[in-house]
Protein backbone atom coordinates (compact mmCIF):
# COMPACT_ATOMS: atom_id res chain seq x y z
CA UNK A 1 0.00 0.00 0.00
CA UNK A 2 1.33 3.42 -0.90
CA UNK A 3 1.22 6.20 1.60
CA UNK A 4 -1.33 8.90 0.84
CA UNK A 5 0.33 12.28 0.45
CA UNK A 6 -1.47 15.02 2.34
CA UNK A 7 -0.66 18.74 2.43
CA UNK A 8 1.78 19.93 5.06
CA UNK A 9 0.20 22.41 7.50
CA UNK A 10 2.02 25.76 7.50
CA UNK A 11 1.54 29.27 8.77
CA UNK A 12 -1.05 30.98 6.53
CA UNK A 13 1.16 33.94 5.60
CA UNK A 14 4.24 31.69 5.50
CA UNK A 15 2.54 29.65 2.77
CA UNK A 16 1.55 32.78 0.81
CA UNK A 17 5.10 34.17 1.09
CA UNK A 18 6.56 30.90 -0.23
CA UNK A 19 4.54 31.30 -3.42
CA UNK A 20 5.50 34.98 -3.64
CA UNK A 21 9.12 33.92 -3.54
CA UNK A 22 8.77 31.06 -6.02
CA UNK A 23 6.42 32.79 -8.52
CA UNK A 24 6.32 36.51 -7.72
CA UNK A 25 4.55 37.42 -10.96
CA UNK A 26 1.81 34.76 -10.65
CA UNK A 27 -1.71 36.16 -10.41
CA UNK A 28 -2.97 36.24 -6.80
CA UNK A 29 -5.97 38.54 -6.61
CA UNK A 30 -8.48 40.22 -8.92
CA UNK A 31 -10.93 42.83 -7.63
CA UNK A 32 -12.64 45.32 -9.95
CA UNK A 33 -9.90 46.76 -12.14
CA UNK A 34 -7.09 45.64 -9.82
CA UNK A 35 -5.08 42.59 -10.93
CA UNK A 36 -2.49 41.84 -8.29
CA UNK A 37 0.38 39.34 -8.41
CA UNK A 38 1.88 37.55 -5.41
CA UNK A 39 4.78 39.95 -5.05
CA UNK A 40 2.53 43.03 -5.02
CA UNK A 41 0.08 41.48 -2.57
CA UNK A 42 2.73 40.41 -0.07
CA UNK A 43 4.64 43.70 -0.37
CA UNK A 44 1.44 45.73 0.10
CA UNK A 45 0.59 43.68 3.19
CA UNK A 46 4.12 44.07 4.57
CA UNK A 47 3.69 47.86 4.28
CA UNK A 48 0.42 47.65 6.20
CA UNK A 49 1.92 45.27 8.77
CA UNK A 50 4.59 47.87 9.52
CA UNK A 51 1.82 50.38 10.26
CA UNK A 52 -0.05 47.91 12.48
CA UNK A 53 3.02 47.20 14.56
CA UNK A 54 3.50 50.96 14.92
CA UNK A 55 -0.04 51.11 16.34
CA UNK A 56 0.87 48.54 18.97
CA UNK A 57 -0.34 45.30 17.34
CA UNK A 58 1.83 42.44 18.59
CA UNK A 59 2.04 38.65 18.23
CA UNK A 60 -0.84 36.89 19.99
CA UNK A 61 -3.23 39.87 19.72
CA UNK A 62 -6.68 39.58 18.20
CA UNK A 63 -7.41 42.40 15.76
CA UNK A 64 -11.07 42.97 14.87
CA UNK A 65 -11.59 44.20 11.30
CA UNK A 66 -14.64 46.25 10.31
CA UNK A 67 -13.72 46.30 6.65
CA UNK A 68 -15.96 45.20 3.75
CA UNK A 69 -14.87 42.43 1.36
CA UNK A 70 -12.38 43.30 -1.36
CA UNK A 71 -8.68 43.53 -2.25
CA UNK A 72 -8.23 46.01 0.58
CA UNK A 73 -9.58 43.56 3.17
CA UNK A 74 -7.36 40.74 1.85
CA UNK A 75 -4.27 42.95 2.17
CA UNK A 76 -5.26 43.99 5.72
CA UNK A 77 -5.91 40.37 6.78
CA UNK A 78 -2.55 39.23 5.43
CA UNK A 79 -0.91 42.19 7.19
CA UNK A 80 -2.42 41.18 10.55
CA UNK A 81 -1.07 37.63 10.09
CA UNK A 82 2.37 38.99 9.11
CA UNK A 83 2.44 40.95 12.36
CA UNK A 84 1.98 37.67 14.25
CA UNK A 85 -1.55 38.54 15.39
CA UNK A 86 -4.91 36.94 14.53
CA UNK A 87 -7.81 38.74 12.91
CA UNK A 88 -11.56 38.63 13.52
CA UNK A 89 -13.44 39.99 10.52
CA UNK A 90 -16.77 41.50 11.53
CA UNK A 91 -19.45 42.67 9.12
CA UNK A 92 -19.95 46.45 9.38
CA UNK A 93 -23.61 45.84 8.43
CA UNK A 94 -24.32 43.81 11.57
CA UNK A 95 -26.37 45.66 14.20
CA UNK A 96 -24.18 47.98 16.29
CA UNK A 97 -25.25 46.16 19.46
CA UNK A 98 -23.93 42.86 18.10
CA UNK A 99 -20.62 44.37 17.07
CA UNK A 100 -20.32 45.93 20.51
CA UNK A 101 -21.06 42.57 22.18
CA UNK A 102 -18.17 41.07 20.22
CA UNK A 103 -15.70 43.91 20.79
CA UNK A 104 -16.43 43.79 24.53
CA UNK A 105 -15.12 40.20 24.59
CA UNK A 106 -11.66 41.53 23.63
CA UNK A 107 -9.19 43.36 25.81
CA UNK A 108 -8.88 46.95 24.52
CA UNK A 109 -8.17 45.82 20.95
CA UNK A 110 -6.84 47.84 18.02
CA UNK A 111 -9.96 47.84 15.82
CA UNK A 112 -9.24 48.44 12.14
CA UNK A 113 -11.80 49.92 9.76
CA UNK A 114 -12.51 52.40 7.02
CA UNK A 115 -12.55 56.13 7.75
CA UNK A 116 -16.01 56.88 9.17
CA UNK A 117 -16.20 53.57 11.05
CA UNK A 118 -15.44 55.14 14.43
CA UNK A 119 -19.06 55.00 15.72
CA UNK A 120 -18.95 51.21 15.32
CA UNK A 121 -15.81 51.00 17.45
CA UNK A 122 -13.01 51.48 14.88
CA UNK A 123 -9.87 52.83 16.62
CA UNK A 124 -7.46 52.96 13.64
CA UNK A 125 -8.54 53.69 10.09
CA UNK A 126 -6.96 52.51 6.86
CA UNK A 127 -8.30 54.13 3.70
CA UNK A 128 -8.33 51.74 0.74
CA UNK A 129 -5.65 52.43 -1.85
CA UNK A 130 -4.42 50.39 -4.82
CA UNK A 131 -2.22 47.53 -3.59
CA UNK A 132 0.47 48.48 -6.12
CA UNK A 133 0.76 51.92 -4.45
CA UNK A 134 0.97 50.33 -1.00
CA UNK A 135 3.66 47.93 -2.21
CA UNK A 136 5.75 50.84 -3.51
CA UNK A 137 5.18 52.88 -0.35
CA UNK A 138 6.97 50.33 1.82
CA UNK A 139 9.87 49.60 -0.52
CA UNK A 140 12.42 51.65 1.46
CA UNK A 141 11.94 50.02 4.83
CA UNK A 142 10.30 46.63 4.27
CA UNK A 143 8.63 45.03 7.31
CA UNK A 144 9.92 41.55 8.04
CA UNK A 145 6.93 39.20 8.57
CA UNK A 146 6.83 37.50 11.98
CA UNK A 147 7.10 33.71 11.89
CA UNK A 148 4.45 31.81 13.82
CA UNK A 149 3.88 28.36 15.30
CA UNK A 150 1.30 26.14 13.62
CA UNK A 151 -0.77 26.23 16.81
CA UNK A 152 -0.83 30.04 17.02
CA UNK A 153 -4.24 31.63 16.44
CA UNK A 154 -4.75 33.02 12.91
CA UNK A 155 -8.41 34.01 12.82
CA UNK A 156 -11.57 34.12 14.91
CA UNK A 157 -14.98 33.28 13.43
CA UNK A 158 -17.97 34.55 15.38
CA UNK A 159 -21.07 32.37 15.23
CA UNK A 160 -24.52 32.50 16.75
CA UNK A 161 -24.61 31.58 20.44
CA UNK A 162 -27.64 29.85 21.96
CA UNK A 163 -28.12 32.52 24.64
CA UNK A 164 -27.83 35.59 22.43
CA UNK A 165 -24.08 36.17 22.92
CA UNK A 166 -22.00 35.49 19.78
CA UNK A 167 -19.19 32.99 20.37
CA UNK A 168 -15.76 33.31 18.76
CA UNK A 169 -14.10 30.20 17.34
CA UNK A 170 -10.34 30.63 17.83
CA UNK A 171 -8.70 29.03 14.80
CA UNK A 172 -4.98 28.23 14.45
CA UNK A 173 -2.82 28.47 11.32
CA UNK A 174 -2.58 24.69 10.94
CA UNK A 175 -6.37 24.35 10.66
CA UNK A 176 -6.57 26.76 7.71
CA UNK A 177 -3.71 25.29 5.68
CA UNK A 178 -4.23 21.58 6.37
CA UNK A 179 -6.25 20.69 3.26
CA UNK A 180 -4.71 22.78 0.46
CA UNK A 181 -1.71 22.13 -1.77
CA UNK A 182 -0.29 18.95 -3.32
CA UNK A 183 -2.39 15.99 -2.13
CA UNK A 184 -5.11 18.36 -0.92
CA UNK A 185 -8.58 19.25 -2.12
CA UNK A 186 -9.51 19.38 -5.79
CA UNK A 187 -9.63 22.84 -7.38
CA UNK A 188 -6.85 24.67 -5.51
CA UNK A 189 -3.31 25.42 -6.66
CA UNK A 190 -1.29 27.12 -9.39
CA UNK A 191 -3.41 27.99 -12.43
CA UNK A 192 -6.70 27.64 -10.58
CA UNK A 193 -8.99 30.62 -9.93
CA UNK A 194 -11.71 30.69 -7.25
CA UNK A 195 -14.45 33.27 -6.81
CA UNK A 196 -14.64 34.93 -3.39
CA UNK A 197 -18.33 35.35 -2.62
CA UNK A 198 -18.80 34.14 0.98
CA UNK A 199 -19.37 36.75 3.73
CA UNK A 200 -16.04 37.85 5.19
CA UNK A 201 -16.88 36.83 8.77
CA UNK A 202 -17.42 33.20 7.73
CA UNK A 203 -14.94 30.34 7.77
CA UNK A 204 -15.87 29.58 4.13
CA UNK A 205 -14.43 32.98 3.23
CA UNK A 206 -11.10 31.51 4.38
CA UNK A 207 -11.79 28.43 2.25
CA UNK A 208 -12.20 30.48 -0.93
CA UNK A 209 -9.40 32.93 -0.19
CA UNK A 210 -6.64 31.12 1.72
CA UNK A 211 -7.43 27.88 -0.11
CA UNK A 212 -6.02 29.44 -3.28
CA UNK A 213 -3.47 31.87 -1.81
CA UNK A 214 -1.76 29.24 0.37
CA UNK A 215 -1.69 26.78 -2.55
CA UNK A 216 -0.49 29.15 -5.30
CA UNK A 217 -3.83 29.80 -7.03
CA UNK A 218 -5.75 33.03 -7.57
CA UNK A 219 -8.95 34.59 -6.24
CA UNK A 220 -11.48 36.90 -7.88
CA UNK A 221 -13.32 38.97 -5.29
CA UNK A 222 -16.97 39.46 -6.25
CA UNK A 223 -18.43 42.67 -4.88
CA UNK A 224 -22.06 41.54 -5.07
CA UNK A 225 -23.31 40.20 -1.76
CA UNK A 226 -26.06 38.31 -3.61
CA UNK A 227 -24.69 36.26 -6.47
CA UNK A 228 -27.01 36.35 -9.48
CA UNK A 229 -26.88 33.58 -12.11
CA UNK A 230 -25.87 36.15 -14.73
CA UNK A 231 -22.91 37.22 -12.58
CA UNK A 232 -21.77 33.62 -12.22
CA UNK A 233 -21.79 33.29 -16.01
CA UNK A 234 -19.63 36.42 -16.35
CA UNK A 235 -17.18 35.22 -13.68
CA UNK A 236 -16.52 32.05 -15.64
CA UNK A 237 -16.47 33.67 -19.09
CA UNK A 238 -14.60 36.91 -18.35
CA UNK A 239 -12.57 36.22 -15.20
CA UNK A 240 -11.83 32.54 -15.92
CA UNK A 241 -13.10 31.42 -12.51
CA UNK A 242 -12.98 27.61 -12.42
CA UNK A 243 -13.48 26.80 -8.70
CA UNK A 244 -16.50 27.82 -6.62
CA UNK A 245 -18.06 27.26 -3.24
CA UNK A 246 -21.83 27.85 -3.07
CA UNK A 247 -24.26 27.45 -0.23
CA UNK A 248 -26.81 24.76 -0.98
CA UNK A 249 -29.81 27.06 -1.23
CA UNK A 250 -28.05 29.36 -3.71
CA UNK A 251 -26.90 26.34 -5.73
CA UNK A 252 -30.50 25.08 -5.81
CA UNK A 253 -31.75 28.49 -6.92
CA UNK A 254 -29.27 28.69 -9.82
CA UNK A 255 -30.11 25.12 -10.87
CA UNK A 256 -33.81 26.13 -10.95
CA UNK A 257 -33.45 29.48 -12.64
CA UNK A 258 -30.46 29.18 -14.98
CA UNK A 259 -28.73 25.77 -14.97
CA UNK A 260 -26.48 26.66 -17.93
CA UNK A 261 -24.82 29.38 -15.86
CA UNK A 262 -22.48 26.71 -14.39
CA UNK A 263 -21.03 25.97 -17.83
CA UNK A 264 -17.23 26.22 -17.83
CA UNK A 265 -16.63 25.62 -14.11
CA UNK A 266 -14.17 22.83 -13.32
CA UNK A 267 -14.77 22.24 -9.60
CA UNK A 268 -17.87 23.08 -7.59
CA UNK A 269 -18.30 22.69 -3.83
CA UNK A 270 -21.80 22.94 -2.37
CA UNK A 271 -22.70 22.81 1.29
CA UNK A 272 -23.68 24.56 4.48
CA UNK A 273 -27.06 22.85 4.41
CA UNK A 274 -28.59 19.50 3.54
CA UNK A 275 -28.38 18.77 -0.20
CA UNK A 276 -31.51 18.58 -2.29
CA UNK A 277 -31.45 15.32 -4.29
CA UNK A 278 -33.66 16.80 -7.01
CA UNK A 279 -31.27 19.69 -7.71
CA UNK A 280 -28.18 17.49 -7.51
CA UNK A 281 -29.77 15.10 -10.04
CA UNK A 282 -30.63 17.96 -12.44
CA UNK A 283 -27.08 19.27 -12.21
CA UNK A 284 -25.41 15.88 -12.77
CA UNK A 285 -27.62 15.14 -15.77
CA UNK A 286 -26.58 18.41 -17.39
CA UNK A 287 -22.87 18.31 -16.31
CA UNK A 288 -21.95 14.63 -15.81
CA UNK A 289 -18.19 15.31 -15.96
CA UNK A 290 -18.04 18.34 -13.66
CA UNK A 291 -16.88 17.41 -10.15
CA UNK A 292 -19.69 18.40 -7.75
CA UNK A 293 -18.61 18.06 -4.12
CA UNK A 294 -20.78 17.98 -1.03
CA UNK A 295 -18.80 19.90 1.60
CA UNK A 296 -19.69 19.35 5.25
CA UNK A 297 -18.40 20.66 8.55
CA UNK A 298 -18.71 23.23 11.36
CA UNK A 299 -16.38 26.24 11.84
CA UNK A 300 -14.93 24.59 14.97
CA UNK A 301 -13.23 22.03 12.72
CA UNK A 302 -12.22 24.78 10.29
CA UNK A 303 -14.11 25.06 6.99
CA UNK A 304 -14.71 21.45 6.03
CA UNK A 305 -14.70 18.16 7.90
CA UNK A 306 -15.65 15.82 5.07
CA UNK A 307 -16.26 15.97 1.32
CA UNK A 308 -18.11 13.73 -1.09
CA UNK A 309 -18.03 13.77 -4.88
CA UNK A 310 -21.71 13.38 -5.66
CA UNK A 311 -22.94 10.81 -8.19
CA UNK A 312 -26.48 10.15 -9.50
CA UNK A 313 -26.92 7.06 -7.25
CA UNK A 314 -26.53 9.30 -4.16
CA UNK A 315 -29.82 11.01 -4.95
CA UNK A 316 -31.67 7.77 -4.14
CA UNK A 317 -30.18 7.27 -0.66
CA UNK A 318 -33.15 7.45 1.76
CA UNK A 319 -31.24 9.30 4.52
CA UNK A 320 -30.02 11.88 2.02
CA UNK A 321 -26.85 12.58 0.07
CA UNK A 322 -23.76 11.32 1.93
CA UNK A 323 -21.26 13.82 3.36
CA UNK A 324 -18.38 11.58 2.41
CA UNK A 325 -14.89 11.01 3.71
CA UNK A 326 -12.80 13.18 6.04
CA UNK A 327 -10.65 15.90 4.45
CA UNK A 328 -6.83 15.61 4.67
CA UNK A 329 -5.59 15.78 8.24
CA UNK A 330 -8.99 15.12 9.79
CA UNK A 331 -10.16 12.01 11.61
CA UNK A 332 -13.86 11.45 12.31
CA UNK A 333 -15.08 9.14 15.07
CA UNK A 334 -18.72 8.45 15.97
CA UNK A 335 -19.52 8.23 19.66
CA UNK A 336 -22.55 6.95 21.52
CA UNK A 337 -24.17 9.05 24.23
CA UNK A 338 -22.09 7.25 26.89
CA UNK A 339 -18.87 8.17 25.03
CA UNK A 340 -18.11 4.70 23.69
CA UNK A 341 -17.46 4.29 19.96
CA UNK A 342 -20.50 3.47 17.81
CA UNK A 343 -20.43 0.12 16.00
CA UNK A 344 -20.16 0.13 12.17
CA UNK A 345 -23.55 1.14 10.77
CA UNK A 346 -24.67 2.57 14.12
CA UNK A 347 -25.56 6.22 14.57
CA UNK A 348 -23.41 8.39 16.82
CA UNK A 349 -22.26 11.92 17.46
CA UNK A 350 -19.71 13.15 14.91
CA UNK A 351 -16.46 13.89 16.77
CA UNK A 352 -13.43 15.28 14.95
CA UNK A 353 -9.67 15.05 15.65
CA UNK A 354 -6.59 16.44 13.97
CA UNK A 355 -5.09 19.77 12.90
CA UNK A 356 -8.48 21.20 11.89
CA UNK A 357 -9.73 21.35 15.48
CA UNK A 358 -10.00 24.92 16.81
CA UNK A 359 -8.20 26.13 19.93
CA UNK A 360 -11.56 26.75 21.61
CA UNK A 361 -14.13 29.48 22.13
CA UNK A 362 -12.79 32.92 22.89
CA UNK A 363 -13.01 33.78 26.61
CA UNK A 364 -15.34 30.87 27.30
CA UNK A 365 -13.47 28.15 29.12
CA UNK A 366 -16.55 26.35 30.32
CA UNK A 367 -17.98 25.84 26.85
CA UNK A 368 -14.50 25.10 25.46
CA UNK A 369 -14.00 22.28 27.99
CA UNK A 370 -17.42 20.86 27.16
CA UNK A 371 -17.12 20.93 23.34
CA UNK A 372 -13.34 20.36 22.97
CA UNK A 373 -12.59 17.49 25.39
CA UNK A 374 -9.47 15.32 25.47
CA UNK A 375 -10.59 11.92 24.26
CA UNK A 376 -8.81 8.65 23.80
CA UNK A 377 -8.60 7.43 20.22
CA UNK A 378 -6.49 4.40 19.23
CA UNK A 379 -4.94 4.30 22.71
CA UNK A 380 -3.88 7.96 22.63
CA UNK A 381 -5.40 11.01 24.34
CA UNK A 382 -6.11 13.75 21.79
CA UNK A 383 -8.09 16.99 21.68
CA UNK A 384 -11.40 16.56 19.93
CA UNK A 385 -14.33 18.65 18.83
CA UNK A 386 -17.81 17.33 19.59
CA UNK A 387 -19.92 18.66 16.71
CA UNK A 388 -23.38 17.88 18.10
CA UNK A 389 -24.15 16.49 14.62
CA UNK A 390 -25.31 12.91 14.32
CA UNK A 391 -24.00 10.58 11.63
CA UNK A 392 -23.20 7.05 10.63
CA UNK A 393 -20.56 5.34 8.48
CA UNK A 394 -21.92 2.98 5.82
CA UNK A 395 -20.16 -0.29 4.94
CA UNK A 396 -17.91 1.55 2.45
CA UNK A 397 -16.73 3.92 5.19
CA UNK A 398 -18.71 6.86 3.84
CA UNK A 399 -20.18 9.27 6.36
CA UNK A 400 -23.90 10.08 6.31
CA UNK A 401 -25.37 13.05 8.17
CA UNK A 402 -28.37 12.34 10.41
CA UNK A 403 -29.37 15.73 11.79
CA UNK A 404 -28.79 17.33 15.18
CA UNK A 405 -29.97 16.73 18.70
CA UNK A 406 -30.32 20.44 19.58
CA UNK A 407 -31.85 23.65 18.22
CA UNK A 408 -29.11 24.80 15.87
CA UNK A 409 -30.34 25.20 12.28
CA UNK A 410 -28.82 26.15 8.95
CA UNK A 411 -30.69 28.67 6.79
CA UNK A 412 -29.16 29.61 3.43
CA UNK A 413 -25.86 28.33 4.79
CA UNK A 414 -26.01 30.52 7.89
CA UNK A 415 -25.74 28.80 11.23
CA UNK A 416 -28.45 30.02 13.56
CA UNK A 417 -29.30 29.11 17.15
CA UNK A 418 -33.07 29.41 17.57
CA UNK A 419 -32.41 30.35 21.21
CA UNK A 420 -30.49 33.41 19.99
CA UNK A 421 -33.61 34.63 18.14
CA UNK A 422 -35.81 33.92 21.17
CA UNK A 423 -33.47 35.89 23.43
CA UNK A 424 -33.80 38.87 21.06
CA UNK A 425 -37.58 38.47 20.75
CA UNK A 426 -37.99 38.27 24.53
CA UNK A 427 -36.34 41.72 24.70
CA UNK A 428 -38.95 43.17 22.30
CA UNK A 429 -41.52 45.45 23.96
CA UNK A 430 -44.99 43.89 24.03
CA UNK A 431 -43.93 40.25 23.57
CA UNK A 432 -44.93 37.98 26.44
CA UNK A 433 -43.86 34.50 25.35
CA UNK A 434 -42.30 33.36 22.10
CA UNK A 435 -40.80 30.47 20.20
CA UNK A 436 -38.66 30.51 17.05
CA UNK A 437 -39.19 27.52 14.80
CA UNK A 438 -37.51 26.41 11.56
CA UNK A 439 -39.88 25.05 8.92
CA UNK A 440 -38.48 22.77 6.23
CA UNK A 441 -39.52 22.10 2.63
CA UNK A 442 -40.31 18.66 1.19
CA UNK A 443 -36.58 17.95 0.72
CA UNK A 444 -35.79 18.62 4.40
CA UNK A 445 -34.06 21.98 3.73
CA UNK A 446 -34.97 24.84 6.07
CA UNK A 447 -37.34 27.10 4.12
CA UNK A 448 -37.88 29.84 6.68
CA UNK A 449 -37.83 30.68 10.37
CA UNK A 450 -41.06 31.81 12.00
CA UNK A 451 -41.47 33.65 15.26
CA UNK A 452 -44.61 32.57 17.06
CA UNK A 453 -45.52 34.77 20.02
CA UNK A 454 -48.12 35.99 22.47
CA UNK A 455 -48.52 39.62 23.50
CA UNK A 456 -48.53 41.41 26.82
CA UNK A 457 -52.04 42.68 27.47
CA UNK A 458 -52.55 46.20 26.14
CA UNK A 459 -49.63 45.92 23.71
CA UNK A 460 -50.04 45.26 20.03
CA UNK A 461 -46.78 45.66 18.12
CA UNK A 462 -47.44 44.80 14.48
CA UNK A 463 -45.36 42.06 12.86
CA UNK A 464 -43.52 44.81 10.99
CA UNK A 465 -42.61 46.49 14.28
CA UNK A 466 -41.45 43.20 15.79
CA UNK A 467 -39.36 42.50 12.70
CA UNK A 468 -37.75 45.95 12.80
CA UNK A 469 -36.90 45.60 16.47
CA UNK A 470 -35.29 42.21 15.89
CA UNK A 471 -33.25 43.70 13.03
CA UNK A 472 -31.58 46.00 15.57
CA UNK A 473 -30.40 42.98 17.59
CA UNK A 474 -29.75 40.18 15.09
CA UNK A 475 -27.78 39.91 11.84
CA UNK A 476 -30.14 40.21 8.84
CA UNK A 477 -29.94 36.49 7.99
CA UNK A 478 -31.22 35.52 11.46
CA UNK A 479 -34.30 37.79 11.46
CA UNK A 480 -37.40 35.58 11.06
CA UNK A 481 -39.48 36.14 7.94
CA UNK A 482 -42.84 34.94 9.29
CA UNK A 483 -44.49 36.48 12.34
CA UNK A 484 -47.40 34.70 13.93
CA UNK A 485 -49.10 36.17 16.95
CA UNK A 486 -51.21 33.64 18.90
CA UNK A 487 -53.45 33.83 21.96
CA UNK A 488 -51.55 30.99 23.67
CA UNK A 489 -48.59 28.87 22.61
CA UNK A 490 -49.41 25.15 22.36
CA UNK A 491 -47.91 23.21 25.30
CA UNK A 492 -47.06 19.58 25.88
CA UNK A 493 -48.15 17.68 28.96
CA UNK A 494 -44.94 18.65 30.77
CA UNK A 495 -45.74 22.35 30.23
CA UNK A 496 -43.03 22.95 27.63
CA UNK A 497 -43.89 24.73 24.38
CA UNK A 498 -44.85 22.16 21.75
CA UNK A 499 -42.25 23.09 19.11
CA UNK A 500 -43.11 20.14 16.91
CA UNK A 501 -46.69 21.39 16.58
CA UNK A 502 -45.46 24.87 15.72
CA UNK A 503 -43.04 23.49 13.12
CA UNK A 504 -45.89 21.63 11.47
CA UNK A 505 -48.24 24.59 11.10
CA UNK A 506 -49.40 24.56 7.46
CA UNK A 507 -47.47 26.69 4.99
Amino acid at each position, binding site marked *: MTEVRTPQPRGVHTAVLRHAEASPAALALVHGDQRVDYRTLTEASATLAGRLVGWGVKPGDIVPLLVPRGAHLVAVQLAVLMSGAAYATLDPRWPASRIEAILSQLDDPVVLGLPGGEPLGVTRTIAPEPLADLARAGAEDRFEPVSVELDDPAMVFFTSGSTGVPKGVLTPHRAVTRMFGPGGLDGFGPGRIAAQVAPAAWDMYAFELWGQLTAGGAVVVVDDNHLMPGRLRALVADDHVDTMWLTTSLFN*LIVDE*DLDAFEGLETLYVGGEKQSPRHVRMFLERFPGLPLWNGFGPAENCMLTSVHRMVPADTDVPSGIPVGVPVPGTTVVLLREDGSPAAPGERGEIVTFGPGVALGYLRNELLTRERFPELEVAGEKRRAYRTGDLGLFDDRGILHYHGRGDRQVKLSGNRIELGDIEAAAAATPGIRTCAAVARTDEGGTVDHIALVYTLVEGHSPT*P*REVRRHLATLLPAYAVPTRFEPMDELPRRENGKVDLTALERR*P*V
Partner: protein
Amino acid sequence: MTENHGVREVEYEQPTNELEEEIAAVMAEVLSVDRVGRRDSFYDLGGTSLSAIRICARIERRLGLRVDPLWLLDHDELADFAEQIRLGAE
Protein backbone atom coordinates in the same frame (compact mmCIF):
# COMPACT_ATOMS: atom_id res chain seq x y z
CA MET B 1 -54.11 37.79 11.78
CA THR B 2 -52.71 35.55 9.09
CA GLU B 3 -51.43 32.06 9.59
CA ASN B 4 -48.45 31.88 7.29
CA HIS B 5 -47.26 34.80 5.33
CA GLY B 6 -46.35 37.96 7.28
CA VAL B 7 -49.20 40.38 7.60
CA ARG B 8 -50.41 42.71 4.92
CA GLU B 9 -50.59 46.01 6.74
CA VAL B 10 -51.69 48.21 3.86
CA GLU B 11 -54.66 48.44 1.51
CA TYR B 12 -54.11 46.83 -1.88
CA GLU B 13 -53.05 49.40 -4.45
CA GLN B 14 -53.13 48.28 -8.06
CA PRO B 15 -49.96 48.52 -10.21
CA THR B 16 -50.12 51.56 -12.50
CA ASN B 17 -47.94 50.56 -15.42
CA GLU B 18 -46.69 47.56 -17.33
CA LEU B 19 -43.34 47.36 -15.53
CA GLU B 20 -45.03 47.31 -12.11
CA GLU B 21 -47.47 44.67 -13.34
CA GLU B 22 -44.67 42.40 -14.59
CA ILE B 23 -42.70 42.79 -11.37
CA ALA B 24 -45.82 42.23 -9.24
CA ALA B 25 -46.49 39.00 -11.13
CA VAL B 26 -42.95 37.69 -10.55
CA MET B 27 -43.03 38.65 -6.87
CA ALA B 28 -46.40 36.98 -6.34
CA GLU B 29 -45.12 33.81 -8.04
CA VAL B 30 -41.91 33.58 -5.99
CA LEU B 31 -43.49 34.55 -2.66
CA SER B 32 -46.56 32.30 -3.25
CA VAL B 33 -49.13 35.04 -2.70
CA ASP B 34 -52.19 35.91 -4.80
CA ARG B 35 -51.18 39.41 -5.70
CA VAL B 36 -48.74 42.16 -4.77
CA GLY B 37 -49.86 45.79 -4.56
CA ARG B 38 -47.80 48.94 -5.09
CA ARG B 39 -47.40 49.59 -1.37
CA ASP B 40 -46.95 45.98 -0.26
CA SER B 41 -43.59 45.33 1.40
CA PHE B 42 -41.48 42.42 0.23
CA TYR B 43 -40.60 41.74 3.87
CA ASP B 44 -44.22 41.67 5.02
CA LEU B 45 -44.81 38.96 2.41
CA GLY B 46 -42.11 36.72 3.91
CA GLY B 47 -39.30 37.72 1.56
CA THR B 48 -35.70 36.60 2.27
CA SER B 49 -32.41 37.52 0.61
CA LEU B 50 -32.69 34.27 -1.32
CA SER B 51 -36.17 35.04 -2.61
CA ALA B 52 -34.85 38.49 -3.61
CA ILE B 53 -32.20 36.81 -5.79
CA ARG B 54 -34.85 34.55 -7.31
CA ILE B 55 -37.19 37.45 -8.07
CA CYS B 56 -34.39 39.48 -9.63
CA ALA B 57 -33.08 36.57 -11.70
CA ARG B 58 -36.57 36.03 -13.15
CA ILE B 59 -37.07 39.72 -13.90
CA GLU B 60 -33.67 39.83 -15.62
CA ARG B 61 -34.54 36.85 -17.76
CA ARG B 62 -38.08 37.88 -18.66
CA LEU B 63 -37.62 41.60 -19.13
CA GLY B 64 -33.96 41.67 -20.15
CA LEU B 65 -33.24 44.37 -17.57
CA ARG B 66 -30.34 44.36 -15.11
CA VAL B 67 -31.65 44.04 -11.56
CA ASP B 68 -29.60 44.12 -8.35
CA PRO B 69 -31.17 42.22 -5.40
CA LEU B 70 -30.03 45.08 -3.15
CA TRP B 71 -32.56 47.34 -4.87
CA LEU B 72 -35.34 45.11 -3.58
CA LEU B 73 -33.81 44.59 -0.13
CA ASP B 74 -33.37 48.36 0.30
CA HIS B 75 -36.63 49.40 -1.45
CA ASP B 76 -39.02 46.73 -0.28
CA GLU B 77 -42.30 48.25 -1.54
CA LEU B 78 -43.21 47.23 -5.08
CA ALA B 79 -43.58 50.79 -6.45
CA ASP B 80 -40.17 51.84 -5.08
CA PHE B 81 -38.46 48.69 -6.34
CA ALA B 82 -39.97 49.22 -9.80
CA GLU B 83 -38.68 52.79 -9.76
CA GLN B 84 -35.14 51.52 -9.01
CA ILE B 85 -35.35 49.13 -11.95
CA ARG B 86 -36.59 51.94 -14.20
CA LEU B 87 -33.73 54.19 -13.10
CA GLY B 88 -31.24 51.35 -13.58
CA ALA B 89 -32.41 50.83 -17.17
CA GLU B 90 -31.87 54.48 -18.11
